[in-house]
């Protein structure tokens, strides 16, 4: 068996590798062939010596400890545990003896990318690597059995496994994985492996505890920011606050005498850093450093100019079609009744709890990076490029991520850290952004506007639907080489005619969904939930608008339009039933409670939510309860899926209630949690997560639910107040009853 065949395809240049491997989320799946990962390289840069490796995925120590290698990054979403469960399931090992480790990106290259893709985003950890990681576990099991059978001189077929023990059934002899691992490692891997039927799972599919909790309870977990290396210095950095601007000058002499300051350096052509013995001294010295910026051509841009730029796209003749059936424009024009609504979605910062940081030791011969990254290989590519060294002379050691949400799939901060460390060769330098720098230099949730138009017949049936999105393309901003004839496929998440990245599931006689790309100067990024977030708001709000205008029940209308989509219907019906749709919700604190619905398919999964809210006479919103249902196909760890669903409402409702970055004088106006507030415990609703795994496919769970959080609440607000909120965040809107 060759576990890498499924993901290794020839024909991509190194440039392509850098670009594609920087992809952190969304739907692009590109095969990799890395020309510089040759056998010669493998010999000159051997993998570090490790305990007996049965195969790339499984190391078993003599004491029966099982080390499972995980290529994807753990950032809270539970992938470390979930992927280990899948390997352990096929390996038939003792779960209580499982630990995990990350292979390094350079080792992956040196071993012909045996661990496949490191990219962790797009809720793809389990859904894209489940097949080859399970095969890795199954192949290791077969090799362990063969090694025992060889030792006993019996046919392997007479041996069985359970919890890390091999039994020769006829004789009753037993041995442990640890005892035969060394011999197993010398065997030729099997060419064909069979995988278990998920109904026979004992470790996968079970609500096992996470493997990484203990060090997060006593302060011992080392996050990127916590790394200590001998002789290490610290750096604080500032980039031109106006995107696209440059560094003009700085007066290093003004801070040269401050305590601990070692050096003040330019970072590329747009930034400046202070290197000091401690970060606090570096940061305060940087704050005192006189800096002049050349703010460049974007210095006059504002939220108003950006909004006008996008508004023009709502009616522009040119647009890229994402989904089309029939002649929607003609159907709407001919309809006796038309409905139209314009919506917008703002820029948002990921605001990971741990700000961007990386530690680098550079010498002219080698560049090493320690960092919390969602994609070790893309971090390696960024480091190599900034260092001016071949990737084989660099490596990246992944540290625990204090949140990712897509931000740590882009590696502008690795580039900076390498450029800083290059100016003090041999000295490890830890670069940490301030929260203010993190807020000012995000890769923001793309900004969009949307015009929804529907034609309705005399009975209130939809005859045609046109959805025009105008706004920013993440792919154009981050990975322009991945645009296909000017088309950004990720724009149409949840709106596609078919496919795992989100099928538009409502059936209407004529449909047109198109995108007028308008890219302001603010850099966009993959932001947990990505384009599904605003697409779901636009579609699910407008479906509710149609229901209201045609005097139909929002649930009944959805059921009618989803008649051919049983999985969408199943999750929708589940939340409606659990929430008690159709019966009044009990009052809370003397306030009437109203419900709103939303459903969508994206990231390979089907999700729905019912929100219960109240709005008092002062217009104050309270979200009391969320019922959410998810069909991810196979469910690898139900309790962690529930955690992801709960967390998705914290993230999605933060975005809906508070998340908005505004632009003034070309820069982001928000600076910290004081002016970019996020959801706290007092605002967090009760979440009832219903898991409906229908089997037969592998969907993601980290992101899809975020998309239904906002529209379910917006629809409930309409039910409560008669106010249709079409522009976010809610903090800017009055909810006093109309």
């Amino acid at each position, binding site marked *: 068996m060759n576990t890498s065949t499924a993901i290794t395809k020839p024909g991509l240049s190194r440039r392509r590798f850098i670009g594609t491997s920087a992809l952190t989320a969304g739907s692009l799946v590109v095969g990799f062939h890395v020309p510089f990962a040759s056998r010669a390289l493998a010999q000159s840069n051997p993998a570090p010596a490790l305990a007996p490796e049965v195969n790339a995925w499984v190391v078993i120590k003599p004491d029966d400890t099982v080390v499972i290698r995980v290529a994807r990054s753990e*950032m*809270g*979403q*539970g992938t470390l545990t979930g992927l280990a469960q899948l390997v352990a399931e096929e390996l038939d090992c003792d779960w209580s003896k499982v630990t995990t480790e990350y292979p390094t990106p350079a080792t992956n290259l040196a071993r012909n990318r045996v661990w496949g893709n490191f990219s962790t985003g797009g809720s793809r950890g389990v859904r894209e690597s489940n097949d080859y990681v399970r095969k890795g576990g199954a192949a290791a099991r077969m090799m362990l059995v063969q090694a025992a059978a060889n030792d006993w001189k019996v046919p392997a077929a007479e041996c069985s496994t359970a919890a890390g023990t091999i039994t020769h059934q006829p004789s009753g002899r037993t041995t442990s994985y640890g005892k035969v691992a060394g011999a197993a490692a010398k065997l030729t891997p099997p060419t064909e492996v069979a995988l278990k039927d998920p109904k026979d799972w004992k470790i996968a599919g079970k609500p096992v*505890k*996470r493997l*990484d*909790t*203990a*060090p*997060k*309870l*006593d*302060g*011992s*977990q*080392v*996050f990127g*920011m*916590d790394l*200590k290396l001998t002789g290490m210095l*610290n750096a604080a950095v500032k980039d031109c606050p106006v995107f696209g601007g440059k560094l003009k000058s700085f007066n290093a002499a003004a801070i040269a005498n401050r*305590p601990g300051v070692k050096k003040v350096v330019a970072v590329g052509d747009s930034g400046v850093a202070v290197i000091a013995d*401690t*970060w*606090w001294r570096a940061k*305060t010295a940087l704050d005192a450093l006189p800096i002049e910026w050349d703010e460049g051509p974007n210095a006059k841009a504002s939220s108003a100019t950006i909004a006008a730029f996008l508004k023009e796209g709502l009616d522009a003749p040119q647009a890229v079609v994402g989904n089309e059936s029939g002649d929607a424009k003609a159907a709407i024009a001919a309809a006796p009744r038309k409905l139209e609504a314009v919506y917008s979605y703002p820029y948002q910062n990921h*605001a*990971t*709890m*741990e*700000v961007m940081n990386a530690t680098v030791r550079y010498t002219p011969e080698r560049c090493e990076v320690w960092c919390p990254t969602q994609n070790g290989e893309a971090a390696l590519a960024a480091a190599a490029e900034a260092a001016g060294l071949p990737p084989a002379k660099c490596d990246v050691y992944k540290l*625990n*991520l*204090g*949140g*990712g*949400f897509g931000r740590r799939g882009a590696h502008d901060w690795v580039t900076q850290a390498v450029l800083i460390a290059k100016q003090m060769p041999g000295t490890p330098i830890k670069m*940490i952004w301030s*929260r203010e720098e993190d807020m000012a230099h995000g890769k923001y949730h793309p900004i969009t506007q949307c015009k929804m138009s529907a034609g309705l017949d005399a009975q209130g049936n939809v005859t045609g639907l046109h959805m025009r999105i105008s706004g920013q393309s993440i792919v154009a901003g981050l990975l322009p080489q991945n645009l296909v004839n000017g088309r950004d496929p990720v724009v149409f998440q949840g709106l596609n005619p078919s496919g795992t990245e989100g099928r538009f599931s409502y059936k209407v006689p004529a449909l047109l969904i198109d995108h007028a790309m308008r890219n302001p100067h603010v850099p966009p990024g993959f932001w947990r939930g990505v384009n599904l977030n605003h697409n779901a708001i636009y579609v699910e709000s407008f479906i509710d608008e149609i229901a209201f205008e045609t005097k139909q029940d929002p649930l009944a209308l959805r059921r009618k339009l989803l008649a051919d989509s049983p999985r969408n219907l199943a999750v929708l019906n589940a939340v409606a039933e659990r929430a008690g749709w159709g019966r009044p919700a009990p009052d809370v604190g003397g306030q009437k409670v109203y419900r709103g619905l939303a459903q969508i398919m994206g990231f390979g999964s089907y999700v729905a939510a019912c929100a219960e809210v109240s709005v008092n006479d002062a217009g104050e919103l309270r979200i009391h309860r969320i019922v959410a249902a998810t069909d991810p196909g196979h469910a690898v760890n139900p309790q*962690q899926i529930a*955690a992801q669903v*709960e*967390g*998705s*409402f*914290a*993230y999605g409702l*933060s975005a809906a209630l508070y998340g908005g970055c505004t632009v003034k004088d070309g820069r982001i106006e928000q600076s*910290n*949690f*004081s002016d970019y507030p*996020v*959801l*706290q*415990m*007092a605002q*967090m609703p*009760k*979440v009832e997560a219903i898991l409906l795994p229908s089997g037969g496919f592998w969907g993601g769970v980290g992101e899809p639910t975020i998309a239904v959080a906002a529209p379910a609440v917006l629809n409930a607000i309409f039910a409560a107040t008669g106010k249709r909120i079409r522009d976010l965040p809610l903090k800017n809107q009055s909810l006093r009853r109309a």
Partner: protein
Amino acid sequence: MASLNVNGTQREFQAEADTPLLWVLREQLGLTGTKYGCGIAQCGACTVHIDGVPTRSCVRPASTVAATEKIVTIEGLAPNASHPVQKAWAALDVPQCGFCQSGMIMAAAALLKDKPKPSDADIDAAMTNICRCGTYNRVRAAIKQAAGGGAAA
């Protein structure tokens, strides 16, 4: 040389008078369990106890803490993570990324000392720490479990 009593030990260090306690703990004393999140006392990731009072150490100059005041960080909360809050956290698998959890745990431990049976309103008022992964509901449940209230809403 200045001196602080941290986790039961008197520790000597050198720092400018305006250096926040957070950075003295992290950079001078090597206690990196206490986190930097915002630097302006908004997020609570830097929460430690000073004489039992939950304190956001990112805005508290270390020079304003007397050598006799007892500072407790996440590393010193309880041996082998045996504090009831830590045990409840483990039982309910609370952390996701984990970055905010030191501050969450310190805030929760202080709350329970003050109010052994906190109401939901008490929890809302005391637990203003920011978690971006969204562990809030498990945090609430774990606080109630640690308080002996059993499984919580």
